[in-house]
């Protein structure tokens, strides 16, 4: 900066500064020599803002709160949780007695026998909401997930199905004559899901149990019919067919035996040649044919 500019600057600022009136000297030093803090003002301001916001939120929220109308169907407080300890039959019997008419399916085959059951039933005034029967090892593993376990779950159709987790692999399978899914989680846990009797049944097995075994468990399930946990003796389809075939064939054979020789040819050619009687036909004494 040259001298001329320096002089101008000094003069200009001196003149301007001289026009600034100083406060009285007694105000230069603070009356209280203790350090002041801006905290009270700031804290008060924040407190005021918080109160204003709180009141605003309260007013807004209050507008949204409406008195609830009394429920037309009060939900009964029948959430039942029993600790494990009962026998398997007692467990399924207890589930049946609390299922409000829903079809309770009990497995009749499990790949691991040393499992103790426990259960949990949730019902509403509309009927069964969910039941869960768990089979856990009687010998508890020291730590970590229990690999050998089964969960038998039945849920009302109005309960939203659980979504597939990340990495879950779903495979369409036939379960008890119904379309179902075999889902394998990344950790090896398998579950089978299908709809039957207006309910969604799920069998969830611990990791280490193959999907084929879980499907076999599903096929083995039978309907519980009483509070003792007994199951209905319902023959599966192949057995039913075989019994009907046997009955049909027996009648045919009886007719064959009692028939006169002229009718035996008709019976042999029209009745016994059906596919269902083929095996019996093959077993007929050759002299009869």
């Amino acid at each position, binding site marked *: *900066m040259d001298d001329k*500019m*320096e002089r*101008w*600057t*000094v003069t*200009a*600022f*001196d*003149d*301007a*500064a001289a*026009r*600034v*009136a*100083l*406060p009285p000297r007694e*105000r*230069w*030093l*603070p009356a209280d*020599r*203790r*350090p*002041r803090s*801006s905290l009270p003002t*700031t804290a008060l*301001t924040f407190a*005021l*803002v918080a109160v204003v916001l709180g009141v605003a939120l309260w007013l807004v929220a209050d507008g949204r709160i409406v008195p609830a109308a009394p429920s037309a169907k009060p939900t009964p407080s029948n959430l039942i949780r029993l600790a494990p300890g009962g026998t398997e039959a007692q467990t399924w019997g207890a589930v049946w007695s609390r299922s409000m008419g829903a079809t309770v399916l009990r497995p009749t085959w499990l790949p691991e026998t040393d499992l103790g059951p426990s259960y949990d039933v949730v019902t509403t005034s509309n009927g069964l909401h969910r039941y869960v029967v768990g089979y856990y090892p009687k010998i508890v593993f020291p730590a970590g997930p229990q690999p050998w376990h089964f969960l038998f779950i039945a849920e009302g159709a109005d309960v939203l199905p659980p979504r597939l987790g990340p990495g879950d692999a779903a495979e369409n399978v036939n379960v008890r004559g119904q379309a179902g899914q075999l889902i394998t989680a990344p950790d090896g846990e398998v579950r089978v899901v299908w709809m039957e009797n207006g309910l969604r049944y799920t069998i969830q097995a611990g990791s280490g149990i193959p999907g084929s075994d879980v499907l076999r468990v599903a096929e083995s399930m039978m309907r519980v019919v009483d509070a003792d946990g007994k199951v209905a003796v319902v023959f599966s389809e192949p057995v039913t067919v075989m019994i009907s075939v046997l009955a049909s064939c027996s009648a045919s054979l009886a007719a064959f035996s009692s028939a006169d020789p002229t009718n035996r040819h008709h019976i042999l050619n029209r009745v016994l040649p059906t596919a269902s009687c083929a095996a019996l036909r093959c077993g007929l004494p050759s002299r009869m044919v």
Partner: protein
Amino acid sequence: METARAYSSELSETAWDEAYLDAYPDVYRGLVALGARGDEAEDALQDAFLRGLERADISRAAGWLFVVSLRRWRRRRFRERIFSPLRAVMRSEHTTEPEVRIDLFDALAGLPRRQREVLVARYVVGLSQEETAASLGIARGTVAATTTQAARALRTRLEER
């Protein structure tokens, strides 16, 4: 021992009082030159004074006082801007306009912040180039260059008025 410490403390407080009172007029005018209202400059200086009581070193008091009070005032101005609606209710008599309009300071307001601070530190507070550099945390060469540049710009602005 306690008496000696108390005496020493009292002595340093007296020294700080003197240094503060000596620098007060220039720093006060410097704050006003940068846009502070009178009451803001007073508060900022008193805050800086109280901060100075905790400070052992009273050398370069003017530069230190200028920078500390400048920060205090800026912080207060920032808070006022944020809570201006509340402040308007609480202290409606205060405005952000300076009491006295001075052409030079008005023109100064149009310069970049660094140029304003350097000019005020040099020509209102009366700091040397070294003191300005130390107080504002910039190199001495930068102070010299900024001063020249800012002075020219300021003069041009005043001549255009």
